[in-house]
């Protein structure tokens, strides 16, 4: 493909970068990133990936936009309340950058659909922007089993965390956290609250990882866990190693299929 003059101008600040250039921008335009969850993390991640010219962005969410989402889920506007988040997200992206093809999946991920969704467009990279442990373990296991790199993240109150998984390189999320905590043992951000900007910081780091992966530049957060404390304004990068007894990514995995963990009851009734 060759660039139109409009594209050269739109992506000029990228093309000027030695690590990107015209070749890198072409890679971005040909890349496909799947974002699971279009909330606090997924919204900013989707917007920056769209602005960067990621050619195909998949959005997965069954939720509809509520007023209480708008304090942090910046892809949705006040007029979008009541609308499905994937549709609202697609509209915002389409208005921002016509180069981006948005594929929407109006569903929750489960063991029965996640592999099909990942394979639907043969996505290059997956972003976990979900807000619950069953989905996080499901995404980890599905990405390990289908050999897809992905970015994990979570935010609550003034805290955020993120790590990146690369196929066959480990560690995966399950290496660190063997299984989900008991339902209701950990508060969700609905109950505990979350500073609106947390998704902006951490979701944008996830988008950065996706972009670097596509470009093949720099060092990714694989083998590390990055935590962010906004009150102390402190980042910590903790080195991790693979768990040789990991249930999913070790040489002798005990899990061979996907698991639908139980969701806390209160989480099942929308937001």
């Amino acid at each position, binding site marked *: 493909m060759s660039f139109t003059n409009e594209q*050269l101008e739109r992506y000029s600040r990228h093309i*000027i970068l030695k690590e990107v250039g*015209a070749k890198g921008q072409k890679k971005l335009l040909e890349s496909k990133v799947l974002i699971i969850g279009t909330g606090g993390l997924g919204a900013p991640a989707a917007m920056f990936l769209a602005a960067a010219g990621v050619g195909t962005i998949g959005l997965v969410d069954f939720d509809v936009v509520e007023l209480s989402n708008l304090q942090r889920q910046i892809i949705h506007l006040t007029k979008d309340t009541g609308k499905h988040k994937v549709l609202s997200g697609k509209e915002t992206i389409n208005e921002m950058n016509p180069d981006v093809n948005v594929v929407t999946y109006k569903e929750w991920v489960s063991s029965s659909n996640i592999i099909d969704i990942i394979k639907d467009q043969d996505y290059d990279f997956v972003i976990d922007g979900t807000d619950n442990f069953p989905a996080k373990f499901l995404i980890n296991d599905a990405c390990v089993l289908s050999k897809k790199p992905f970015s994990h993240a979570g935010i609550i109150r003034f805290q955020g965390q993120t790590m990146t998984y690369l196929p066959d390189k480990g560690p995966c999320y399950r290496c660190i956290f063997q299984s989900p905590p008991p339902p209701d043992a950990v508060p969700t951000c609905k109950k505990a609250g979350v500073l609106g900007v947390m998704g902006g910081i951490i979701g944008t780091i996830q988008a950065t990882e996706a972009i670097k992966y596509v470009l093949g530049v720099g060092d990714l957060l694989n083998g590390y866990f990055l935590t962010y404390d906004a009150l102390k304004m402190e980042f910590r990068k903790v080195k991790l190693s693979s768990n040789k007894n990991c249930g999913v990514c070790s040489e002798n995995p005990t899990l061979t299929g996907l698991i639908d963990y139980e969701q806390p009851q209160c989480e099942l009734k929308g937001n």
Partner: protein
Amino acid sequence: MSEIKSDAYIDITDVVCPMTFVKTKVAIEDIENGQVLEVKMNEGEPVLNVPRSLKEEGHKVISVENNGDRTFTVWVKKGDI
């Protein structure tokens, strides 16, 4: 000087910074390592900055010629990057 053999040519006299360098970068990425790109640019800011930016990226500026009509022609050999 103009007998330097070039493999590609681009005229960036119709654009301003940063599109001058953007268009030059796109053109140089389209040729092979060791090949030569001939770039026609305006005097002033473009001729001050574009050759310098090309050098910073690892390319070799072979020659700069003042065309006498407020434009310059720069020959640059693509570096191994």
